């Protein structure tokens, strides 16, 4: 955080000089801009995107110059920021769902600029979309939870009942069931992406009701800390939060955007960029499990490694049948698996989740 803010200030003061030098020397650097919905902070969604930005700069040396604007509210404010960035950059990444329509609107006025929008579903000739298969990481987290839990009860603090969250909960339970057929998930909706106090209270509640592994689909580190304080295992989300739970945080499902950003910029520089929809998971390296806590036994760690490779190779599908919904209906028969479009619009819970969408 400190580093990047100072860098930003330095960039701001040196920008005019840098421009002159650029002209005096060879070709101008390829300019790439990022729009962030939250402050970069030390953990979470935006932090992971910023790691990707730094990796991009590092891999191209001086040939690519990046800039970013953090804490941009979705809506009218974002359109102004995107428009501003489009005037001076060749490629713009907009990293939150709510930037979808502003991105498309601005893209119309800048046909020569390449845009890429994270987690959206609308594309144009110069607007691509990209997202990660969060559920693949969740399945592995579930497997680990199933092996490490004594009670078989997993506590899940979730923000809102949208497909991305619901799919993650289902994948986690399916993973846990593969290790322990009696596993269940107890869950609480906090109705907020970010409220550390509520997340903490929800985690405490789940622990009191017998959950001995807790996880979250919210943006703060509160759940991991609740586990550390009470000696209960946790599995983090978005980024590695082991610093907040050194004894109890087993691992984290993290999103890694480095490869996507580097590839997109490479094709942009080569002139081969085209609008597409990237939905990458473990195989593409967009989803990675953080380093396992030393308390995880070696045989379990080996099993996680094998299953990670199997998901990467495509031989293990998290939503492979039989998948039974809460109401008893069969969603995927033995030998079949849910299709991508069904996963992307999932709005029902797997049998064994104690909660309601």
């Amino acid at each position, binding site marked *: *955080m400190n580093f990047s803010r100072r860098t930003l200030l330095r960039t701001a003061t040196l920008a005019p000089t840098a421009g002159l030098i650029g002209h005096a020397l060879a070709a101008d650097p390829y300019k790439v801009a990022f729009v962030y919905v939250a402050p970069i902070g030390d953990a979470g969604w935006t932090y992971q995107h910023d790691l990707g930005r730094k990796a991009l700069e590092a891999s191209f040396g001086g040939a690519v110059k990046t800039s970013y604007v953090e804490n941009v509210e979705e809506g009218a404010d974002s359109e102004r920021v995107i428009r501003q960035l489009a005037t001076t950059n060749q490629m713009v990444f907009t990293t939150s769902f709510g930037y979808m329509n502003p991105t498309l609107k601005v893209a119309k006025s800048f046909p020569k600029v390449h845009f890429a929008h994270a987690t959206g579903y609308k594309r144009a000739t110069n607007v691509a979309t990209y997202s990660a298969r969060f559920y693949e990481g969740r399945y592995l987290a579930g497997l680990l939870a199933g092996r490490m839990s004594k009670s078989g009860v997993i506590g899940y603090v979730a923000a809102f009942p949208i497909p991305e969250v619901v799919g993650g909960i289902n994948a986690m339970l399916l993973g846990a069931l593969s290790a322990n057929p009696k596993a269940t998930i107890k*869950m609480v909706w906090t109705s907020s992406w970010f409220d550390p106090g509520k997340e903490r209270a929800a985690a405490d509640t789940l622990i009191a009701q017998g959950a001995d592994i807790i996880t979250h689909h919210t943006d703060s580190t509160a759940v991991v800390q609740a586990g550390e304080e009470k000696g209960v295992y946790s599995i983090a989300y978005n980024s590695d939060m082991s610093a907040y739970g050194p*004894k109890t945080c087993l691992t984290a499902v993290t999103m890694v955007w480095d490869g996507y950003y580097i590839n997109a910029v490479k094709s942009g520089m080569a002139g081969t960029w085209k609008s597409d929809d990237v939905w990458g998971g473990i195989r593409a390296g967009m989803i990675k499990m953080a380093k396992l806590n030393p308390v995880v036994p070696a045989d379990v760690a080996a099993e996680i490694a094998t299953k990670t490779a199997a998901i990467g190779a495509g031989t293990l599908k998290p939503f492979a049948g039989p998948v039974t919904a809460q109401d008893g209906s069969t969603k995927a028969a033995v030998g079949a698996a849910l299709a991508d479009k069904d996963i992307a619009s999932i709005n029902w819970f797997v049998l064994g989740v104690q909660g*309601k969408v």
Partner: protein
Amino acid sequence: MPDGGILLAMLVATLRAATPLVLAGLGELVTERAGVLNLGIEGMMLVGAAVGFMATVATGNPALGMLAAMLAGAAMALVFGFLTLSLLANQVATGLALTIFGIGLSALLVVDYQGHPITGLATVISPGLSQASPMVQQLLLIDPLVVLALVLPFVVQWFLGRTRAGLVVRAVGESHDVAFALGYRVIRIRYLCVVFGGAISGLAGAYLSLAYTPMWTENMVAGRGWIALALVVFSTWKPVLLAVGALLFGFVTIAQFQAEAMGINVPSQLLATLPYLATIAVLVLISRDATRTKLNAPAALGRSFHAST
């Protein structure tokens, strides 16, 4: 059915959820009883949370962190006091500005300290917390600030209702002209109340960053300052009623989580509104006598005072 362990967990969770609301609410209540409306609670809580966190990281001592948080909250309140009491700026506008200022300032202050994990207050006091049995663990989570939040409402009630100084504060809030004519230093008394409100709001913020969720993230108070403000009005400016309202709000929030975790079949969106509905319903019921409510509201609330008028 909930067993003893779950009931105890609910009780402790309720106390912990209510503590920041009680503390910040009492600060605002005393401020308003002196006739000053400070809408900057959220900002003062955030700065208190930020400074308390920084001081704890720097010194390793949560007690010093809490002290620093109180001083920071008081400093914020002093800025508000200078603008509204000395320069006679509009209290509503200044209070809102204080909140917005606090959101930005707190984020800026902690830039160099962000990401430091700290040990929670309860673990500092009882290091064996994570190994203790669930029942003992619950009891160990009742830290000194929770106890303070249980005692302070009675102290403030006694101060405002039974002491001469409390009577003077109320006189200033009811009619600053009469209080001034009687020889009381209206501005000085208001300054003291505003600064007390700021200090205790800062402490409420520090409870969040040091005890409840031991960490710092931007905007972590997440609207609790506004809930505290609403509780002051709904409790008809009575400290003990305020505490009851805060406890009720905390209880329904926790009960909602418990009900969901048990798999009770009610839409989550409806459950999420319950804490607000229940608190408003109960407090409206308590204060349904309109005349008494009016008598309780400080008559000079939000009005600027200058000795020449």
